[in-house]
């Protein structure tokens, strides 16, 4: 296996958790909810994924555990912000803190234990093709799932009535309510979807990326996923491109260090955020981009007047 191929393989592994978390958060934000608790939902997903795999012996069931635990965290967020109309920013930050603490407590028993890896699939002949074999046909199911999710979210958002309703709720919840759309229900579903994706992204870390439990192992990836959604101007295909770009930057960091290249690693870790700020500056100068893609009701609580 060539060095180039191995770099590409690690880029895919680094990009997938970012992609999973970001595509979920994109749907949440398109519905007008800002959930800053992605990091918290991810880390709980990571520890529950690890625990699930340990308990059942199956990494696939572990992934299901991760997904459900992310949804559980999202349900709490939804109850607080949608039902009780708590401030979304504050609740999201609290969710992250809760997730970090909770995962540390649950994971205490698992520190240092060997994990169960969710291995790549193996298609005879195809996986053995030179160069592209491992790359295209030897990945684990979650990589394929993340790509299907991007296509699916893109299709649903822009080609179906359900997606139209999600975007309408995010653009103007009062008008959507007047048309008879249940704003709260739509947002609950979007928040739960976002939680499932974030949980799965966390599970990917503890089941594929580094199959073990380390406290705080998400290491800021939830925040990068949040930045990624803005970077992509709330477009699913751009989230895909951005996730792989940010993933590559992360991998580059290790290789640059290993080869003694003189770029400070701090600069490389800051790069996703710098890129996001640059994108924010660019889109804010373009009326069409901001008005058409940015959900106008993002972060605004909805209270129907009846």
């Amino acid at each position, binding site marked *: 296996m060539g060095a180039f191929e191995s770099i590409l393989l690690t880029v895919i592994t680094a990009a997938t958790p970012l992609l999973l978390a970001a595509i979920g958060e994109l749907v949440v934000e398109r519905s007008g909810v800002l959930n800053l608790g992605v990091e918290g939902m991810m880390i709980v997903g990571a520890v529950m994924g690890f625990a699930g795999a340990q308990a059942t012996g199956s990494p696939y069931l572990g992934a299901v555990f991760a997904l459900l635990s992310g949804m559980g965290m999202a349900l709490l967020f939804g109850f607080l912000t949608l039902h009780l109309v708590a401030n979304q920013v504050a609740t999201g930050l609290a969710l992250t803190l809760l997730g970090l603490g909770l995962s540390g407590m649950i994971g205490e028993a698992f520190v240092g234990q060997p994990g169960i890896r969710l291995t790549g699939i193996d298609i005879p002949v195809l996986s053995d093709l030179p160069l592209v074999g491992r790359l295209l046909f030897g990945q684990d199911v979650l990589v394929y799932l993340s790509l299907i999710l991007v296509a699916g979210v893109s299709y649903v958002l822009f080609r179906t009535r359900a997606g139209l*309703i999600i975007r309408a709720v995010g653009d103007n919840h009062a*008008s959507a309510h007047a*048309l008879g759309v249940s704003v709260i229900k739509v947002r609950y579903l979007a928040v739960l979807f976002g939680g499932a994706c974030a949980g799965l992204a966390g599970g990917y870390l503890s089941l594929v990326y580094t199959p073990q439990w380390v406290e705080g192992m998400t290491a800021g990836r939830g925040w990068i996923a949040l930045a990624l959604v803005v970077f992509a101007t709330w477009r699913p295909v751009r989230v895909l491109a951005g996730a792989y770009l940010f993933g590559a930057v992360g991998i580059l960091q290790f290789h640059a260090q290993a080869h003694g290249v003189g770029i400070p690693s701090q600069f490389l870790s800051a790069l996703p955020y710098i890129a996001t700020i640059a994108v924010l500056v660019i889109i804010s100068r373009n009326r069409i981009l901001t008005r058409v893609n940015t959900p106008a009701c993002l972060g605004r609580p909805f209270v129907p007047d009846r």
Partner: protein
Amino acid sequence: MTVDDTTDPQQRQAHQRRGTILLEAQGITKRFGDILANDDVSLTLRAGEIHALLGENGAGKSTLVKILYGALDPNSGDLAWQGQTVGIASPAEARALGIGMVFQHFSLFEALTVAENIALALPPGQSFRELSDRIRTVSRDYGLTLDPSAIVADLSVGVRQRIEIVRCLLQEPRLIIMDEPTSVLTPQEADQLFVTLERLASEGCAILYISHRLEEVQRICHHATIMRHGKVVMECDPTQETAGSLARLMVGSAVHDLKRGVAPREGNVHLALKGLSADAEGPFSVAIDTIGLDVHAGEVVAIAGIAGNGQSELFELLSGERLATIDTSVMIGGMPMGRAGITKRRRAGAAFVPEERLGHGAVPGLKLSENLVLTRHGTGDGLVRSGFVKTGRAGELEQKIKKNFDVRMSHDDPEARALSGGNLQKFVIGRELDRRPDLLVVNQPTWGVDAGAAALIRQELIDLSRHGAAVLVISQDLDEIFEIADRVAVISRGKLSEAIPSNKLTRERVGLLMGGLEEKTGGAGDAA
């Protein structure tokens, strides 16, 4: 005068009404806190009848129609649809019964296209291409031109209203509720709408028509219900009444005719536009094309035009929200101001009232006194000293404006959004007039404002000019223009016609100029 002698229902005999009863509301009462918005209101809507609902802003009309449309729950009262008692718990249920509504404050999604906006209001199961075709067909049939793939954010107020109307028509409703549908339409567009409404009525559709424009009500409505302070004060046949008697019933006192005062002599030029040009900012924005205009002290100049012909772009260039490329293309009080910011222009004696009062003219979530500071912090009114806001002074000014301009509010110094449209407009205009500016530029001064408030605002504009200020009014309301303007210019596709004294101008000529006909034919008679 007292109102009681004219409002006794016994005095006016109920006229013959035809058509089967479609929707009947009995004893509707709705309370918001201490305010009784609807007090035992009853209403009968019949198939094939255009039914006017008249009343000032705050009379309870909007509350009543929201209840009929299922957007609000009444505290008590019954609704019956074709004789069957129904509870309309949501707009979706109202639509399922066959009730459609065109909102006054548009309920559109700015980020979505015209077709997507319409699709949301229709039952699912229709392909996008079919829908786009239907939109084109309906909009052509009813003369309401629409491009289904345009994004709403780029469309003017007039076009947005067309979307609302077409959206409602596509639902093939049995009853259409229209809240101030003509307030932003040109006379020609309004005529087209009346044809549409009459056709719908002849097809057996019931129409509940809310308007402040009494001439319209008299022209097209078969029956009228007049509300005041949350109660029905009168039901009548509007064609049997005069505009004056309807206005008295609505307002509760006689509406005064405007006093024009003496015709002005030529004063100093307070606003001079010369070769003012600007590129279009987006695909649906209009380019301003070498506009020239002088506005003298002591006169009211009006700019007429169909919605979306460059009015908002011109206003932004005048107010300084957008800067002109050439400094001397906008001269305020003899000084070049084309490149100057808003505060500098205000300091030079200019004042501006934009079209949108909520969100542009005033910050919805701030108190009136705070909104006052926002526009007048830099104009030497003593509102800000060493960077600190003088809240006491702001409160005094707020009280003064409230008194002088008859701004009605439920409690002292409320948030801007708590005021009804007419009252907020009175406040926004009062805030600028209170400075006694040398130049006032105002865009759509009485849009969506009730008759009483509109008359007050128009009189204030005339009085300001007669005290030596130059007043420039941008309006789509021809009645208003002919009521107040000394000279009239017409804007069409970003070009401005010459300003013509209003007594030498006919409505037909304005109509032709609006369509851009005179510029093409060089003013020759072959336009006819």
